[in-house]
């Protein structure tokens, strides 16, 4: 029983973190119909950012978000406004290729700037665990999980209750009508992408807190974001969280009861299955479904 509980807890914690990586990816996909292959690279950029702040200023990774989030928001804003907006109306593979080029650029830029060394943001609490009976919960992962929940809730509140959030949703549903409301679609898109980038960077900070990273792992996080976004339904924040948790649990249980080498197979199996059986995702909303070509 203990292994099961332990795997469950760990899977949930891991899933929460992955959800934070994926939520921005899902937002961008849902609102702009752009599949951002550079998403993982942006997350890892955030990881380096946070790591650098910790190394040079001793800033705690959670605290460093005060700097990381706004800066990465601006980075994302500029990328969307200056680059992706140029091909937003093109056939889908154009945005896929553009963001793939962006990924190559970022990953290799990081490789040149930081080398391929594995990094980890090591804090005083990163070694501690909370033991509940036989089940152990590492503080760092708990913090990451908590932050994931917090930011997801914050994102939901932002999207639901602010004027910009309203504009983001409106633009995602009908770009033309949004223009007629006086919404500057270019700006709204850039804010959306900036928000997604900031969230990815926050996830990156947490990746550095709980584990190790190097530029080349970026692609793996993008792939996991795919699975989660599809599972949760595009542009659905709670869906992304749920998708992350489902993925975390499925791989944790799969590795425990089947084979550790099958975790990736399980993830992709889920992806393909969900796409074929229910393309709108587990929590997909009909209006996104209609929008999303399915």
């Amino acid at each position: 029983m203990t292994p099961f509980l332990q795997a469950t807890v760990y899977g949930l914690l891991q899933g929460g973190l992955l959800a934070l990586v994926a939520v921005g990816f899902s937002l961008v996909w849902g609102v702009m119909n752009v599949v951002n292959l550079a998403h993982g690279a942006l997350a890892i950029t955030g990881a380096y950012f946070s790591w650098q702040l910790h190394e040079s200023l001793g800033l705690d990774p959670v605290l460093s978000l005060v700097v990381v989030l706004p800066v990465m928001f601006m980075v994302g804003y500029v990328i969307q406004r200056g680059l992706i907006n140029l091909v937003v109306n093109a056939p889908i593979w154009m945005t896929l290729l553009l963001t793939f080029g962006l990924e190559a650029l970022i990953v290799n830029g990081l490789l040149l700037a930081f080398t391929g060394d594995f990094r980890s943001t090591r804090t005083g609490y990163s070694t501690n665990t909370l033991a509940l009976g036989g089940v152990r919960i590492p503080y760092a992962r708990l913090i990451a999980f908590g932050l994931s929940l917090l930011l997801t809730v914050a994102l939901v509140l932002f999207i639901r209750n602010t004027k910009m959030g309203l504009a983001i949703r409106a633009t995602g549903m009908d770009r033309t009508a949004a223009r007629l409301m006086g919404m500057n679609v270019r700006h709204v898109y850039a804010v959306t992408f900036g928000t997604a980038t900031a969230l990815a960077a926050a996830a990156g900070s947490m990746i550095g807190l709980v584990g190790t990273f190097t530029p080349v792992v970026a692609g793996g996080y993008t792939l996991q974001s795919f699975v989660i976004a599809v599972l949760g339904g595009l542009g659905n924040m709670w869906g992304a969280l749920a998708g992350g948790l489902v993925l975390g649990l499925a791989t944790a249980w799969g590795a425990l009861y089947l084979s550790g080498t099958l975790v990736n197979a399980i993830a992709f199996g889920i992806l393909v299955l969900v796409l074929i059986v229910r393309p709108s995702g587990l929590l997909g909303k009909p209006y996104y479904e209609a929008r999303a070509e399915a």
Partner: protein
Amino acid sequence: MAATSARPGMPESESESAHPELGAPTTGPPKAAPAGRTTASQLAGWALVLGLLVICLLAPKLFIPSFLRTLSAVFMFATLAQAWNIIGGFTGYPSFGNVVFFGLGGYTIAVLMARSHWSFWPALVVAVVLGAAYAMLIGIPTLRLKGHYFAIATLGVAEGTREIVLNVPKVTGGGAGITVPAVGPSATTSYPGNTGFLYYFLALLVVAMLAVYAIARSRFGFALRAINQDEDAAAAAGINTTRMKIAAFMVSGAITAAAGSIYAFQQVSIYPDRLFSVDITVLMVIMAVIGGSGTVIGPLVGGVGLQFLSEYLRQNFTDYHTFIFGAIIIVAVVLLPEGAVRFASETVRQRRLPIMDNLRRYRL
């Protein structure tokens, strides 16, 4: 009375599309090249291609050995781009998992030659058949999806298939890879060497080019283009869209599997990470799209051009080449969204570089 307001195919209201391009003359690019009838200029074009082919056939005399290897990689990628072009360019289904056929072909060869001691040629036939069969198997469920969903479903299939290959080490060698018996007493087919593989890949490229050329001019090609443009209208015109899409995917899969087979034999030892690498898929797409997807010649131009470019960058910018390549892709996507071939023909037609048109075409 003068012309009326409703434009064919573009009603005043934009209710049929979620993200209409405001005031744009067309809502999409001319996705498929009009299939031309044989004309003098066309013949001239093909004569030129043929001439190049002859030059390349004479390559062993003209070039030094390592260039043969580079050239065979060029041919291979041009073939892969052309195979992708059938499903992605003509049919309009952007497969992001085409590498799965490459890997499948390679592993078929390796397993049959290493484990069952087959010789290369019958194994190649099996690999091609399996490639087509697998395309059918995964095409039946995934070709019902469209756009990003199809792209990602195929990506998932490719990644998943790699994991399966990794998890049956008794057959495939798993992560440790598998070695084709290419030399020594266990070899079932003598190893053709650099020149041999150059011809194999060239032959395959010619087959792929001819296949696509034939498809472009056949009923099948018309069906694919019609599906690409409007699937409902295609069905109403009597086209069995499901069957045609699956057939296109099968042809694409078969050619890709053949390329993977030759590649596996050439490499001798193969590993799942490489044979199912998403990078190979991305290269196929980039080459086809930047050359001109949906045209016969575009993938060749893209494949040859980009593979040489990447090789040039790698040799001359040892540390920065991937960085530069990424930047070039970005620039190419922004400036040549319709591909080099259409860009060139537009340039000739308008007698000016339509760069600003390209920039305006898809921007917000």
